[in-house]
């Protein structure tokens, strides 16, 4: 029911076959003969590689430049310069906040409050960074966010890979009905069920623990997207690979662990990226379930740097924010390709 609702799935796969698969063939094909074709179906590869800044082989320069007279060429150059200027202008609201955050965290409060802002801190100081850790158990909160996100990510990858594989590859009675039941989770926003979930967690005595932040995302509605992506991936995996495994005497679990799972690394990578970020960003659930400061997660902790009158202590808050943002940003810059592919593709599915 869900998939004819998602036209780009099939289309994206075809695209990947044309231009996006080159990358994955190198990786998985090296160790397993016959893996090339699986690259074409890899969920995370569905966007054409050109989206990610590679060369664009499909488009020929088509000789129009040669045909254009000199005056037209000059005009075109000016137009292109104008477009670049427009891009520079448009990137300000995307780049400036991050830069402003980092520089402001180095300013003393007096400099922050002054009427005309200073672009670069006049008296840079790391004082605010010290106070980040003295005002709250920030290291503990950082660790909380980190281990919860890691647990949710690993759990989701495992659970979604198993379910996705079974729904795609194993015929058992009631499989379709069960799949529809699981997919229904996509239609239920987490806000709708927050009151009963709070009551359930409360009656189990698990309020102010991290259990609901780990177990509900791994097994509940947030994991459905991951299951769907893994199933799409395994559907496209050539059956011959499994046949070969069966000939070698592998059972179902053996085929799953030794053949299917290693081949699904790119899809698992996409699942890992969006699951980690989702958990890392979770806000409503922590503020509903958690109440003591040493249990808080980062998004929740960031809002707590306020003075006695409830006004934000900007430099401290921005220092904590910088500490939260920079590591993820660095990882993003290093593994940009995986991030963009993983997130954009899962965005399509969601």
């Amino acid at each position: 029911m869900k998939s004819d609702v998602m036209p780009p799935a099939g289309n994206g796969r075809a695209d990947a076959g044309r231009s996006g698969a080159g990358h994955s063939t190198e990786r998985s094909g090296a160790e397993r003969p016959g893996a090339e074709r699986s690259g074409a179906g890899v969920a995370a590869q569905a966007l054409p590689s050109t989206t990610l800044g590679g060369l664009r082989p499909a488009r020929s320069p088509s000789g129009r430049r040669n045909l254009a007279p000199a005056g037209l060429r000059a005009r075109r150059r000016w137009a292109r310069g104008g477009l670049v200027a427009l891009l520079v202008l448009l990137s300000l609201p995307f780049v400036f906040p991050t830069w402003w955050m980092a520089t402001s965290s180095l300013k003393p409060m007096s400099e922050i409050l002054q009427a005309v802002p200073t672009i670069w801190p006049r008296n840079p100081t790391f004082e605010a960074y010290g106070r980040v850790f003295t005002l709250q158990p920030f290291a503990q909160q950082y660790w909380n966010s980190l281990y919860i996100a890691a647990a949710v990510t690993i759990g989701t990858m495992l659970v979604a890979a198993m379910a996705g594989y079974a729904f795609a590859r194993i015929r058992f009675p009631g499989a379709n009905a069960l799949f529809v039941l699981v997919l229904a989770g996509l239609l239920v926003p987490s806000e709708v069920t927050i009151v009963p979930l709070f009551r359930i967690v409360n009656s189990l005595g698990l309020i102010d623990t991290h259990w609901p932040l780990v177990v509900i995302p791994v097994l509940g509605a947030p994991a459905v997207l991951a299951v769907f992506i893994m199933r799409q991936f395994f559907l496209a995996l050539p059956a011959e690979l499994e046949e070969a495994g069966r000939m070698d005497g592998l059972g179902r679990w053996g085929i799953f662990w030794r053949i299917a799972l290693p081949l699904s690394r790119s899809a698992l990578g996409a699942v890992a990226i969006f699951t980690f970020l989702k958990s890392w960003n979770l806000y409503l659930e922590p503020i509903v379930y958690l109440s003591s400061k040493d249990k808080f997660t980062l998004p929740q902790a960031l809002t707590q740097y306020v003075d006695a009158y409830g006004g934000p202590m900007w430099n401290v808050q921005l220092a904590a924010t910088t500490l939260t943002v920079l590591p993820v940003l660095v990882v993003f810059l290093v593994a940009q390709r995986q991030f963009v592919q993983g997130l954009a593709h899962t965005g399509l599915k969601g």
Partner: protein
Amino acid sequence: MAAASVRVVAPRPTGVRASKGVRRDWVVGYTMVAPVVLGALAFVVLPLGMVVWYSLHEWNVLAGTFTFAGAANYERLLADPGLVDSLLASLWFSIGLVVLNIALALLLAVLLDQKLPGTTTFRTFFFSPVVVSLVAWTIVWSFLLQADGGINGFLAMFGLEGPNWLRQGGTAMLSVIVVQVFKNVGLNMILFLAALQGVPEELQEAARLDGAGAWRRFRSITLPMISPTILLVSIITIVGSLEVFAQIDVLTGGGPGNSTTVLVYYLYQQAFRFNEFGYASAVAVLLFVIVLALTLLQWQSRKRWVFHEV
């Protein structure tokens, strides 16, 4: 199933009746799907039933009473001016977000598709807020949008006096929308970029030979060709916009007045500030119905205005 992904599972060398091996396969299948199926029952189906059940009850948490009230919560819902305000706030937020987001995403994608120098860097810039923590991004913007914050300081350099963005009725909602647009527009931009690059060059070439200008080509070829993506992105953005919570909580707290108290924030306030669990459940049911209706409506309308079906 999309046709491309239907694939026949390899035929098994078995007779008509399920053999032992096949049954063993069933067991493996059930075991593998058990976690998500049980999870769906425990954390989706059960809570959904509970929220409907709660919504039919008068629930006083402090006194510990829980009495059947029939449709009383829903009658209250209809007569509640606060709910009307929050529905309007949600409506404005969704409309503003979708219009600005799609327009900007399309503009950025078209610009990045021009083979200009530095395209890769610009793409990184536009996409980077997507990976920045939502609350962190919102806090930084909250800092920038203060009465004496960076944006007004910037305006002051040109002798302009900016408003107190987050504390005035007119600008508070606009600010929340703009912050959200810049946070996530990079994702939609990438989706549009992929769609743009899928438009066959021959069509553009043919139109160019027929004397069509750049704008005409965009209107008559590019736009129809990428309309499925525009629809899809619109749906994702609209449904996502109904779930906006952290931004409201950090930027405005629903204010000033209740001008930015969107439906989800209203639900949160009723449940966790005022302990009105029964009434909040009725709001939750309303939210669910709206999300469901929107999803169905969008897919119904899909055939009517999407030109290029893929």
